[in-house]
């Protein structure tokens, strides 16, 4: 049977893709875990980051991987600024308003991108863009392998930040008990802004890893954001380990679904998992850590 002969390569492809999904979802789960809001602008911010990588490559000749520190910092600043100056002010602290504000930001960003950069699809041409690595059972493109390794490393760094630093401790405190954190002297609004900034910074890194593999246009964020939401729910909202594991699971589910059910029906695996998790383990595979 054809499917069995290509099962191993499909599993590897799924895991590679899943790692990048996980990096996109990590930012989302951090924002949800701390601010308890779903950031509807997540997809459009990913799109902005990808355009940033594209223009750095086009105009300055900067390799997307070398752009990771720049894009991470730039997207952090953007996220920090958005939360501090726009979202917190416009929402007046009300959760339902935050949803609407982020939705509004998303619409503005997408249409601004369409106006400034047109609907044209752009991609980067890299000298190693077609290089492959022979893993024995599968030929994996170098760009995908780099994306997988980088996603693992960046996820580990993020976990270390949250688990081992004072900032991380403060973030966890605010996520656990906002008023208590305020009482012990933590600047909650600053932590909100820092968390949003870090969440969006993850998108900066993800964009650098995605652009060598995929293309960018004003709609590209929508392609990934639904999968990101699924991963956040699957992994457990606010759980980094959960988001990473969820990303890998979803990547593999998508790959195997496409293999056995056809590419059109294959997506159903993702949504079946989503529904099963909501039914049987609604807090997700990994509960959020305090």
């Amino acid at each position: 049977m054809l499917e069995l002969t290509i099962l191993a390569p499909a599993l590897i492809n799924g895991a590679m893709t899943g790692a990048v999904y996980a990096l996109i979802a990590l930012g989302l789960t951090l924002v949800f875990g701390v601010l308890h809001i779903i950031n509807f602008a997540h997809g459009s911010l990913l799109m902005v980051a990808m355009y940033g990588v594209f223009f750095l490559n086009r105009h300055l000749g900067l390799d997307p991987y070398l752009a990771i520190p720049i894009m991470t910092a730039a997207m952090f600043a953007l996220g920090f600024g958005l939360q501090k100056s726009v979202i917190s002010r416009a929402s007046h602290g009300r959760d339902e308003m935050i949803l609407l504000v982020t939705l509004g930001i998303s619409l503005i960003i997408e249409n601004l991108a369409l106006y400034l950069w047109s609907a044209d699809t752009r991609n980067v041409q890299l000298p190693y863009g077609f290089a492959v690595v022979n893993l024995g059972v599968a030929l994996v493109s170098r760009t995908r392998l780099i994306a997988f390794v980088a996603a693992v490393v960046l996820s580990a760094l993020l976990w270390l930040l949250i688990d081992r630093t004072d900032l991380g401790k403060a973030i966890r405190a605010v996520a656990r008990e906002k008023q208590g954190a305020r009482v012990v002297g933590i600047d909650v609004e600053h932590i909100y802004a820092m968390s949003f900034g870090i969440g969006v910074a993850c998108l900066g890194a993800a964009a650098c890893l995605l652009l060598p593999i995929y293309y960018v246009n004003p709609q590209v964020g929508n392609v990934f954001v639904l999968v990101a939401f699924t991963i956040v729910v699957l992994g457990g909202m606010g759980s980094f380990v959960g988001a990473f594991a969820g990303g890998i699971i979803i990547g593999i589910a998508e790959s195997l679904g496409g293999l056995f059910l056809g590419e059109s029906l294959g997506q159903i695996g993702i949504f079946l998992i989503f529904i099963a998790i909501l039914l049987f383990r609604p807090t997700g595979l990994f509960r959020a850590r305090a």
Partner: protein
Amino acid sequence: MDTLGKERDSQISRRQFVVATAATAVAAFPAVLRAQAAPVKVGIMHPITGFLAYSGNQCRAGALMAVEEINAGGGIKALGGAKIEPLLADNQSKVDVGASEFEKLNEAGISAFVGPYASAIGISTSQAATRYALPHVCDVTVSDRVVAKDKPTTFRFSPGYTSIAETAISRLDEINKSAGGIAKKVMMVHEESESGAGTQKMLAKELPKYGFDIVETVLHPNPTRDFSNIVLRIRARNPDILIIGNYYDEYVLLVRTLRQQQVRLKGIYSVLGGGASSFRFVRESAETAQHIMDTNHWYNPLNPKALDLRKRVEAKGLDFSYEVYLNYNAVMWLADSIERARSAKREAIVEALATSTWSGHILPYGPTKIVDGQNTGAMAATLQVQGNDIQVILPKQFASAKIVFPAPA
């Protein structure tokens, strides 16, 4: 003494003054005083946003260039120089939005409609056009479910996927025979919407007639994030020829993944492929694009008007893609029909479209003849990327280069 009479003799009367003034005004400012011919409202709808946005914007550019040209040339002369007034709409690449935007255009009182690019949306808009007896000129919409006997107000100048599929496979047979008949196994990968799935069904009927074996058919969603698994299947099946048909973004992603995975084929043959007849694809992915063949819409490379249009489009920084010239052509055809109808009334335009024998187009077609809404003179061209350009390889009367098959290793 008749003082008044003397004054009457020597002075201009008030009536004479008014008449002289009016005559002067008419002579000097005819446009101001003559009644302006009411503009002819034409609804123009394309996917300006959504996953088909690149194509949609190209379509709109082509349509508007035609409108500008018509209006600059004096408008519809049979209607006293009436200008074409375009009412633009965005269907966002979605069927439901296309349907609701069509209703809005109809309510705005359009005399005719041009669009909507995607077949899935065209099926819906052509049904609505039938209800409202509104002339519906399809710009691309290759599905043969869009143009039909029971849709008497829907027309298409370019070919549909049945005729394109039949042409494509007979030409594939010709290409294969030119290389000694070395290709036997064929695999097909298409996007899953009406255009791709419909084309694949037609091809599946035609291929066995010429002795080709279809080893597998694949349909994929729009958008598709990753073609790795599909390419794994292609490698495992090891076809001689891969036939693909999808929209631009997915087309490029698929052929790039094929190259990354080092899948060797005797040829990639698109039928209504989204990339291989795109100058943008050749420019941005030159190595990947080499020797890919495509049977698709094309312009007549021997027609001076086509070459002039290409210059003007490229001067605007746009690619001269099929979306541009098919929409340019659709609007020009509509304008010609309105001229012949000598009316902006819907039924008159429908009659004019149905009896059109228009020869002022820029496409490599036979004589225009409309049967059940379809121009039976329309035909696709078979193209191949060679070097930095796209060459016509078939039909021979329009060919600009020889066929290269199999693709060099």
